[in-house]
């Protein structure tokens, strides 16, 4: 009976892990494609260095969100980790994702701070595209 419950739990966790990882991957893919379209738009229309920065920040936010999903999947995976090999891999991947999430957050904050210092003339949230009339 106990073994049956364990197997059932393992199946359930595996399905949940796949779903959550798929969500994270979807967020990253959508973010990359969206950023690409915006890069094309900004590159062909504005042709200014400043216009690229909000797009990079948007991409950074998408990546951070995707990483959150992937970390959630890692946490779920720890519920069932049968061998030391798998636990080791899981720890390595979780460490990479956590470090990346941390640095991504710092980079976004740094970019925002730099924009705030540079553009006092156009103060406000640089990622707020509504201010410039763009629909992002």
């Amino acid at each position, binding site marked *: 009976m106990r073994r049956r419950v364990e197997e059932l739990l393992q199946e359930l966790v595996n399905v949940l892990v796949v779903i959550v990882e798929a969500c994270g991957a979807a967020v990253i893919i959508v973010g990359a494609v969206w950023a690409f379209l915006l890069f094309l738009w900004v590159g062909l229309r504005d042709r200014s260095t400043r216009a*690229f920065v909000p797009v990079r920040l948007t991409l950074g936010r998408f990546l951070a969100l995707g*990483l959150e999903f992937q970390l959630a999947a890692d946490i779920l995976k720890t519920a069932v980790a049968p061998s030391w090999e798998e636990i080791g891999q899981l720890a390595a991947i979780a460490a990479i994702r956590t470090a990346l999430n941390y640095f991504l957050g710092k980079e976004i904050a740094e970019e925002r701070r730099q924009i705030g210092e540079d553009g006092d003339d156009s103060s406000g949230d640089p990622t707020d595209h509504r201010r410039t009339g763009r629909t992002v």
Partner: protein
Amino acid sequence: MSSTLAAVTGTMSQVVAAIALVSGGLALAVTRRPALALGILLDLLVAAGLLRLVGDPGWRTVATVAIVIAIRHLVTYGLRLGARSWKETRKRRPDRTRQRYDDSARHLLRPAWRR
């Protein structure tokens, strides 16, 4: 199910890598700023690397992605440091000149014997 997801994300990671090259090239062509173009390229390459980690990657894949991300951070940090020092040098230079002019003017208007 997991292997299907890994296959899809593997293909998509190649698409994102191609997107990274196009976006980086476009940014370089439009702005003529290699630092910005490199930043965009590396951001999108990290996205491609993250997609490669979905599923059950082997040690080799994990190590490759970790090295790429570490290099990416090193390059970004170096670029940012260089840009900051360049900016500070450019900012500081006129201030120093102005200070020197102010000191000279003050000295001429109020020589030491009048103080």
